[in-house]
């Protein structure tokens, strides 16, 4: 049983990553539910997806302070949805800052030290530069697979399950790059004690 919340910015691909993760959980034989965001919010807005699995899942929504994992595709969005992470939960954070329009215009200030705040709440926070790692694997847009790779060391899904799930979920031409990004992410993060 696990609740995973994926927070990012419209266009970063966290909807696709949520599908890869959910497909993997399905292959493991679990009951799975996800919640996605479509439509207007995808135009560069704050986008959150939720994936839950277990023997039996009712609500597609994760409750506040109950998520086992927070996958933050961007620092501010990680901070925004940190309250959903349970006290024992793990944050996996892409060390990437994308200024929202109010910050670009000088009407608001991007919070400094977002990573430190996340770390002070969630012990064992995993930090990685997913865009850079994905770029090395061939395409920075595969950053989501990199983040899933970092998550994978905390889950008991066999490698073949992840691979199959990526193959089923991403466009055929992007499969190899995403598999590479996944491996890079898997190696990047610290392994759980």
């Amino acid at each position, binding site marked *: 049983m696990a609740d995973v919340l994926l927070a990012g910015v419209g266009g970063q691909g966290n909807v696709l990553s949520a599908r890869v993760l959910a497909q993997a959980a399905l292959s493991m034989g679990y009951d799975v539910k996800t919640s996605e*965001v479509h439509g207007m919010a995808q135009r560069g807005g704050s986008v959150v997806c939720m994936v839950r699995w277990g023997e039996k899942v009712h609500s597609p929504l994760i409750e506040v302070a109950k998520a086992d994992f927070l996958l933050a595709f961007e620092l501010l969005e990680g901070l925004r949805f940190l309250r959903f992470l349970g006290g024992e939960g793990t944050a996996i954070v892409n060390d990437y800052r994308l200024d929202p329009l109010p910050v*670009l215009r000088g009407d608001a200030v991007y919070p400094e030290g977002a990573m430190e705040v996340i770390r002070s709440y969630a012990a064992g926070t995993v930090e990685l530069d997913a865009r850079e790692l994905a770029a090395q694997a061939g395409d920075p847009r595969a950053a989501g697979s990199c983040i899933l790779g970092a998550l994978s060391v905390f889950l008991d899904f066999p490698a073949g399950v992840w691979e199959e799930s990526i193959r089923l979920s991403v466009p055929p031409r992007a499969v190899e790059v995403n598999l590479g990004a996944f491996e890079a992410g898997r190696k990047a993060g610290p392994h759980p004690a």
Partner: protein
Amino acid sequence: MKRALLSGNEAIALGAWCAGVRVGAAYPGTPSTEILEELAARPDVYCEWAPNEKVALEVGIGSCLGGARSLVAMKHVGLNVAADPWMTLPYIGVNAGLVLVVADDPGMHSSQNEQDSRYYARMSKVPMLEPADSQECLDMVRAALELSERYDTPVLLRVETRISHSRTVVEYREERVGADLPYEKDAVKRVMIPGHARLRHPVVIARLEELEREAESPSMSVVEMRSSRVGIVTSGVCYQYAREAFPEASILKLGCVYPLPRKAIREFASHFRRVYVVEELEPFLEEGIKALGIDVVGKARIPRDGELDPTLVGESLAELIEMDTGVKHGGWSPPAPHAAIPAESELPGRPPVMCPGCPHRGLFYALNRNKAVVSSDIGCYTLSVLPPLAGIDCQVCMGASVGMALGMERAFATSEANAEKAGRVVCVLGDSTFIHGGITGLIDMVYNRTVSTIIILDNRTTAMTGFQDHPGTGRTLMGEDTHALDLVELCRAVGVESVRVVDPWELEEMEAVIREEMEAPRTSVIVSRRSCVLRERRAGVFYRVDEEECTGCKRCLRLGCPALVMRGERAEVQQDLCVGCSMCAQVCRPGALREVRADG
């Protein structure tokens, strides 16, 4: 048996296909859009994007009369557009089954209101089914079509955003049943002159009583007896929330929310001193249950606006349930917020924005320069209401912008208080929206000799809902090439003298054309034409700021482009976001923005 993770929308499409649906029609609208896209991807089913929801339903009426099982899909506000045919359809009935899927959007993720479509079921005396997950989406489409044929009535299937866009496990057989009914003329039943309609209305009323018996069936009204003290009545996704919030409670889950299964409700309620209703939006079930003389609590505790979730359901009812029954809340109660976590209000918001290079940006910049009063419509361009463009005065629903501009212009023209606004009213709407509901407003403008300027933001697609084709794009939902409606010729044909096409990336020209047309004493149309930048990018070109030349005046920031940032006293272009539209370079007075070609 296959096992897959499907969204509610995918499951509806699959269920419809398996149930032999041969005709599907819709107009795109979040959260319903993917239903028709998924159905169209399957063989042997005709699917179309109709110009609007009313036409989509009319296509469905025709096809079900013609003997083909049919599905029509729309978002909640789309049913308002389709309400006229919808209200008479129950009188004439169907031949093959017809299901109308209506997707409500509590919380308004992507909508202008959060109306509760269940009242349409009551108003039109049509049964409404409501699934609680994707498996039920699949099963209920088929049940709805069978019910439709058995009782000669259209059937509503109501979903909500969290059903449409949640993926849950579905088990199914990919088998299709045949459905092909003979057509026979029956004018007394299908031609609603008053004399015929008077005969049909009593039939509709009598049918409701029979449908109530269907609603009572165990496949529709599911009773889960657990606690002998706490009983909850619910339906749809709210069932899932209630289940998590009160794991020990007994639950009556209604699969048919209209007509209500009164017998099943009475029987369930008889076990408890009082029952609790968990439902989103209006007290629809609650009112129905109250009318049976049952002690029921719902909206006195649970919010009537916005979305629910398990925590909110728990917090709303826990205290009352404990007081009533002594049963303590068994669900999740979140701890007090941790001191390290900043409150949402302390963080900068991240509203959705128009994309870098979005052609709408140039148009609204030019409108602002002309101090226009802007009557807007529904689409990505509505995002220009936010600063810095802040370029919209009013907006209501699809196509409304044109008639509203006409009315506003008439008010200003006869006003002393607002005399200086006369002649400054401009209406903006998208290409798909213009075809959906704007063209009749334009005919009104010309007919009644209105001085106004209509701007059609022609980005060659229905962008907001995810790039659906429409009658102006030259392609159908089935992927076939077709005639592309010529918007310029159409406007001329209804009598607009001046129709001009301008590229919104050309700011000076756009500004000048708007000025000329606002000054001209006539109805005029400007087609602001450039493909959505997400479909057609300018390859290999971007801009950078020459730091020596930039004076830090922030003029370029007035465009509200996400690729432009201030770094200290100088502007900077984020190159991976820039698409090379050049609009920033056009507004920069010192000429600090330089074009760079990626190939050197």
